[in-house]
């Protein structure tokens, strides 16, 4: 899972004080650790993204801890209050320690 396709959707222009939605999606199999290998009968070890975080101009404003029950190719939508123009930086961290990043620019008027 060296490469994961991440997508972030946020409005380009927002008014100051407005609360807007940020939608994120990343490709990851999110192996739950419950599935069994059909040939060997052994459980496939867990390999999930366990942490998602969003920073707004360097300040962490929304984070979440995920468990095996989050679906494959996890989708996460949340809200942000517009303060200043800048960037929203998403980071996803999985069980192997791999970090995936994606940003979106927002201009606040």
């Amino acid at each position: 899972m060296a490469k994961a396709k991440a997508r972030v959707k946020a409005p380009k222009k927002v008014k100051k004080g407005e609360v807007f939605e940020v939608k994120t999606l990343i490709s990851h199999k999110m192996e739950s650790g419950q599935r069994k290998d059909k040939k060997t009968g052994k459980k496939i070890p867990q390999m999930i993204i366990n942490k998602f975080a969003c920073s707004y101009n360097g300040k962490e404003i929304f984070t979440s801890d995920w468990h095996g029950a989050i679906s494959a190719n996890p989708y996460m939508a949340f809200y942000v209050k517009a303060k200043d123009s800048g960037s929203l930086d998403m980071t996803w961290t999985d069980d192997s320690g791999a970090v995936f990043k994606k940003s979106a620019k927002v201009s606040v008027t």
Partner: protein
Amino acid sequence: MVRKIEMQPVNRREVMKFVGVGAVTGVVASLLPNLALADAAKTAAAVKKVAGGKTPASGKITLELPQIAENGNTVPIGFEVDSPMTDSNYVKTVHIFADKNPNPEVGSFHFTSDCGKAKASTRMRMAKTQNIVAVAEMSDGSVYMAKSEVKVTIGGCGG
């Protein structure tokens, strides 16, 4: 006389069959609630842990879940907690639990006052028909809980 002798083994067999069925139903009946209890107990323990010894109050949380989920692999889930989301009064964390999944924990979502709204949505896996429990921790230390049942047609844990 002959008839009577023939009848007896049949009767006995019938009786044994009846006893057997009874025993099986008894075992199943005694087993099922235990299993359900174990799951519910696990969830209750998880809820207790995040509630930090407080009894969660009801209200404030709105859960957006389908009544019936055809595919347990991706069930859309959304939640919103009623809060002004100011620096002094905001929702700290929302925990989601599924009481019949192999592990009750689904996710914990940490908000700040910069979110503007304590609202989020994602997609989750559900092993079978069950209750989804949301626990919200507020900045003032109070704890709220909400519950909603989702019927699942095909489970999503890939047993």
